């Protein structure tokens, strides 16, 4: 079983549309994991049935029992996150500011502070329109620990792939270079970087590749909207060859992506097109080199 992770650094490069197309093409060979838990969109194209849903608890948050509190103020003093202001004469924890370190609870002389497990979201196992399985999630509003939810989604997908003897786990990663991305990358066998030939596309590509390099994972790159700017496309190609990154494909700027999406379909289901052929070739190539 191989784990293929699709990431992009920059948002809006077409990462999810391309991942959904691979999920469609891979059919029964694949278990899909939507690890972009912050703004999960794969379900809009793959028609999951949300067969099982489970709450996800991670991290803790402080709560002060006002009856037991003597208002000594020690908790507010040690809190490095300014999460315990005095409101109407009472020390009150601000949930959005609390990092869950538990320092306040440890030093409270009257043990008035409880650290409660936090519900940070929900995760699902679904059957999608190809008949295959997908693991996905929805992060609660402003929740922390999205890295842990990513790890959960990925591990469940891996378990299913092993149980059902599937060849690939296909992971839709999140934008950026922070904890959810690090979580998406850990344990991967192959990374697909989706970029676009814009000044921000190449900037973000280079940064996210720096991160990928630390993991030492084999990497390929798809340049989407490639004909938008030939000069930047050439710069990207040069960067790829200097870093031994496989150039999987260059896809043209094509609004069919949006039309297919509006129709709830991946672009490979949406009639014949050049992009469709290129994505099919890309998937074959990835299977070859992953």
């Amino acid at each position, binding site marked *: 079983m191989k784990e293929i992770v699709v990431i992009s*650094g*920059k*948002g*809006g*490069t077409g990462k*999810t549309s391309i991942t959904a197309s691979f999920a469609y093409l891979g059919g029964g060979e694949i278990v899909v994991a939507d690890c972009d838990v*912050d*703004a999960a*969109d794969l379900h*809009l194209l793959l028609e999951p049935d949300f067969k099982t849903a489970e709450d996800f608890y991670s991290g*803790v948050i402080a709560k002060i029992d006002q009856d037991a509190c003597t208002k000594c103020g020690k908790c507010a003093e*040690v809190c*490095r*996150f300014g999460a315990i202001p005095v409101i109407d004469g009472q020390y009150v924890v601000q949930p*959005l500011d609390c*990092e*869950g*370190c*538990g*320092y306040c609870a*440890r*030093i409270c002389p009257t043990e008035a502070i409880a*650290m409660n497990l936090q519900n940070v979201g929900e995760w699902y196992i679904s059957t999608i329109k190809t008949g295959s399985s997908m693991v996905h999630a929805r*992060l609660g*509003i*402003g*929740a*922390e620990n*999205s*890295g842990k939810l990513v790890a959960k989604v990925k591990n469940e997908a891996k378990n299913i792939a092993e149980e059902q003897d599937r060849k690939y786990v296909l992971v839709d990663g*999140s*934008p*950026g*270079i*922070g*904890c959810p991305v*690090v979580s998406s990358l850990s344990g991967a066998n192959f990374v697909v970087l989706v970029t*676009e*030939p*814009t*000044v*921000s*596309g190449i*900037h*973000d590509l280079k*940064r*996210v590749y*720096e*991160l990928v390099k*630390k993991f030492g994972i084999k990497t390929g790159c798809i340049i989407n*909207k490639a004909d*938008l*700017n030939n*000069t*930047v496309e050439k710069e990207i190609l040069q960067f790829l060859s200097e870093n031994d990154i496989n150039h999987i494909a260059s896809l043209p*700027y094509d*609004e069919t992506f*949006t039309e297919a*999406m*509006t129709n709830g379909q991946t672009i490979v289901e949406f009639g014949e097109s050049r992009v469709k052929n290129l994505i099919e070739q890309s998937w074959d190539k990835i299977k070859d080199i992953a």
Partner: protein
Amino acid sequence: MKIAIASGKGGTGKTTLSTNLAAYLAEKESVVLTDLDVEEPNSGLFIHGNLINREDKYKAVPRWNSDNCTLCGNCQKVCNFHAVIQLVDQIMVFPELCHSCYACSELCPTGSLPMIPEKMGELREYQSGNLHFVESKLDVGQEQAVPLIAQTNKYVDEKYSDEIIKLYDSPPGTSCPVIEVTKDADFVILVTEPTPFGLHDLTLAVETMRELDKKFGVVVNRYGIGNDDVIDYCESEKIPVIAKISNSRRIAELYSRGRLLYGEIPELKDELVKVFDFVKGNLDRGET
């Protein structure tokens, strides 16, 4: 006046709106644009000015000092983030997991874990006429964006009065970094595109703003693609659609070269005026 430009979905045009609005307003008055998408900051590719300040930014992490350590294990016990681990004959610290809460350090009976600054990123400040631009970049390998966002916010708050217009380019999503950016804003502009992905992620962003009790409005970018669902949603939820930026390949091409758009696309200037007038009018009237 603090205005944050955010979105659920990435790549909808946050940076395009932030940089163009900042540069346009700076033709007449002082503006501070701060790029708080510290994982992948892009505003600096469109805004050029003279570098006037550069600072390394640090977070405090514990460093083990073996001298008086009795290996009592308290540090490992009090760390909720598994950033301090006790091995047979030593204490190991994983700085990337540390939230700088100081619990291990201050609760250590022998003072064996002093907090030491560790570099997490870099802040740069540029100026071009009325336009002040601050950006922070997280070092690759650092996992937590929030401490750097918080320090960058503090830098801008201390240096610039709240009287001037402050624009903040936010990271995508709805999790902790976005909260850190938007929680102190007077108004949040949510940028979206009229597609199923755009709509879905907009609804998440709207829920987040409502949870935070923020004033907000929507700018629809790439207007003309997709369908009317975003507009219909805003109407039924009584969310103001402040401006619509038409889809155009020419905008995409100019963007790809790192160019500001409003000088070359007059319609865009009209939309920027609408955005600012709306936000200013809303804040002046104290509407919710």
